[in-house]
C-alpha cells in the first residue's frame, strides 16, 4: 500500500490492446482507501476494458496493477477475488436458474473452508458451517433489501431487484474494493434512488468503490472523485464539481450529454 496517499489500488501506465487496436493507453490512477471513485467517459473510452484488466478478465499489454501491495497482473479472476477485489458486470449477470439465496450462497464461496473430503464424509463441522453461511446469506440479502425474495428464482426478479442481487452476490464475497460496472443502467428513477441508498451503506461499511456509470446525476452525487476517460486516456481527475467545470471534459463528453440529462 502506498502509505503517503492511502492508495488501495494503484494502476500505473496500464495499456490494453485487442490485436492491433489500443483500447487503453498509459492509464495511471489510484483508488484511495474508503472512497467512491467514478470512471466516466464516452462509450468505447476503455472503462470496461480497464475493469476487466484490473479483475483479471483481460491481460494487460503493459503497466502495473497493484492492490494493497500485491501485483494483480497475470492473476486469475478467482485469485484476485480472494484478495478482496470483486466486480459486477455491465450486462446483468446472476445465476438465473437458482434461487436468490442460492445465488448469495455461491457468492459466499470464499467464506467457506470446507474440504471436499470433509464434505463427502459428512462431518458435523460441514453442517455447522452450512448453517452459518445460510445466516450470512440472509444478512447480505437484508443489507441490499431483497430478503423477502430469497426463495424465488433469480430469473423471476424485477430488473431493479436483479441488479441488487448482483451486488449482493459481489458483497457476499466480502470485497474490500468493489468494482461496479454501470449498476443503474436501465433502472427507473425510483430504482436508481434506492440503489444509491444501498451504495451509500456499502461505502459506510468501509468498502472502497470504483464505479463506472453513465448516469451523471448519480455520479456527481455519490462520488468523492471522478476520472474522465476519453479514447483510452485519462483527460481529467478531480472532485465532481471540478470535473463538471473541466473544459476538456465538457468538450469530450459532458457538455452535450450533461445538458441533455439536465434538460
Amino acid at each position: 500500500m502506498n502509505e503517503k496517499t492511502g492508495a488501495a489500488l494503484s494502476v500505473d501506465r496500464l495499456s490494453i490492446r485487442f490485436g492491433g487496436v489500443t483500447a487503453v493507453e498509459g492509464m495511471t490512477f489510484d483508488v484511495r482507501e474508503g472512497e467512491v471513485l467514478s470512471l466516466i467517459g464516452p462509450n468505447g473510452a476503455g472503462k470496461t476494458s480497464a475493469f476487466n484488466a484490473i479483475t483479471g478478465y483481460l491481460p494487460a499489454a503493459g503497466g502495473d496493477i497493484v492492490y494493497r501491495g500485491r501485483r494483480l497482473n497475470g492473476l486469475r479472476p478467482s485469485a484476485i477475488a480472494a484478495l478482496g477485489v470483486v466486480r459486477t458486470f455491465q450486462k446483468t449477470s446472476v445465476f438465473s436458474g437458482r434461487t436468490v439465496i442460492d445465488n448469495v450462497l455461491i457468492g459466499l464461496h470464499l467464506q467457506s473452508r470446507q474440504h471436499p473430503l470433509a464434505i463427502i464424509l459428512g462431518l458435523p463441522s460441514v453442517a455447522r458451517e452450512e448453517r452459518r453461511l445460510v445466516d450470512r446469506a440472509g444478512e447480505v440479502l437484508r443489507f441490499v433489501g431483497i430478503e423477502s425474495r430469497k426463495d424465488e428464482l433469480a430469473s423471476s426478479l424485477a430488473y431493479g431487484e436483479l441488479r441488487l442481487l448482483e451486488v449482493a452476490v459481489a458483497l457476499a464475497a466480502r470485497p474490500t474494493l468493489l468494482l461496479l460496472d454501470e449498476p443503474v443502467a436501465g433502472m427507473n428513477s425510483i430504482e436508481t434512488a434506492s440503489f444509491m441508498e444501498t451504495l451509500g451503506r456499502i461505502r459506510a461499511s468501509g468498502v472502497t468503490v470504483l464505479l463506472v456509470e453513465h448516469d451523471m446525476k448519480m455520479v456527481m452525487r455519490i462520488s468523492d472523485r471522478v476520472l474522465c476517460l476519453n479514447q483510452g486516456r485519462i483527460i481529467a481527475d478531480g472532485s465532481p464539481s471540478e470535473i463538471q467545470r473541466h473544459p476538456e471534459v465538457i468538450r469530450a463528453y459532458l457538455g452535450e450529454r450533461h445538458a441533455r440529462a439536465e434538460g
Partner: protein
Amino acid sequence: MRRAAAAALLAFLISIPLWVGNLYVLHVLIVTGIFTIAAMSLNLLLGYTGQLSLGHVAFFGIGAYVSSLVSLGFSVHLAPDWLVTLAPQPVWLAMLWAIAISGFCGWAIGRISFKVRGAYFVIVTISFAEVVRLVALNWDELTNGPMALNNIPPLTVSIPGVIDFSFIGKVPNYYLVLAAAIVAYVVIARLVHSKAGRAMIALKENEPLAMSVGIEVTRYLVLSAVVSAAIAGMAGALYAQYIQIVDPNIFLFIYTVTMVIMVVVGGKGTLAGPIVGGLIFGLLPEGLRSFEIPPELQWVAYGVMMIVIVSIMPSGIVPALSRWWNDRARANAKPAEASEAGARQAAQ
C-alpha cells in the same frame, strides 16, 4: 414429503428379493443397479458441471479391469527383462484399488482437458475410452485380450473367527449393489449440497460470474471428474466381481450412450434423475423382450419411447414431475381465493 417418498422407495427396493423369486429378474435388477450407479456418477459431471463425458465407460471399464487384475494377480513384462508380478489380493482391496485408479484417471483427464473444456472435453473423453479399449484388447499378457479375464473371484468379507461371507448368487449381490448405490447417492448428494457443488453449478450457469466471487474453475471441474470417475470405477468393480468375466467389449461406446440416455431422460442435474432414468432404461429392454415381438422391433420401441419422453419432457422426467408437483401445490395453496372468485363470477 420428499423424505417419505425416499424412505418408501428404499423400503420397496429392500423388500424386492423377499417376494421376487425369479433369479433372472434379480439378475436384471443387479445389472440395472450397477449401470444406475454409473449413470449417477456421469450425472455429477454432465448435470452439475455441464461437462459431457462421452467416454465415461472408460472409468467403468478401468474399475472392472483393475479390480479383476488385482484380485486375480498378474505377471507382466513392462520391459523384456523387467517382470512385474502381483499375487492375488483380497477382492475388497482390489475394489478399493479400482476406485483409486479410476479416480486418478479422472484427475488426469480433468487436468488435461479442462483447460479448454466444452467440445474438447467430449473429444478427449471419447478418445480416452477408445485408447483404453485398444490397450485392453491388445495387451494380451496383462488382460488376455479378447480371451477375457475369467474366474474373477466374488467379493468376500472375512474376519477370522467372526465372519466369512462371499457375495455369491443373486440375493447377496442385489443387496451389495443396493448398498453401493446408496453410498454413491449419499456422496454425490453431500457434494452437490455443499460449497463444492454450488461451485460446480455456478461454473455451469455463469462461469465469468463464478470466477468473480473467487471460484477456481479447474479445481472444481477436476474435483467433479475425480469423484465421478471413482464412482464409475466402483460400479465397474462391482460388475466384474458379479459377472466374474471381463473382456474389452466392456469399453464399447454403446454403454456410455446408455448412461447418457439414463441421465438425460431421467433429468440431468437432479439427484433422482439418473435413478429414474437408470431404472427405466435398464429394465425397458428386458420388459420389451417379454412381448412376443421380433428383437428389431423391440429396439425400435426403445428408441420411440426415448424420443417421446424427451420431446414431452425435454429437461427430463424428474424436473418435469417436480414442476408439475410444485404447480399443483401452488394451486392448492390458493383455493380460498379461487373459490371466492368463482363465487363472485357465479353471482354475476
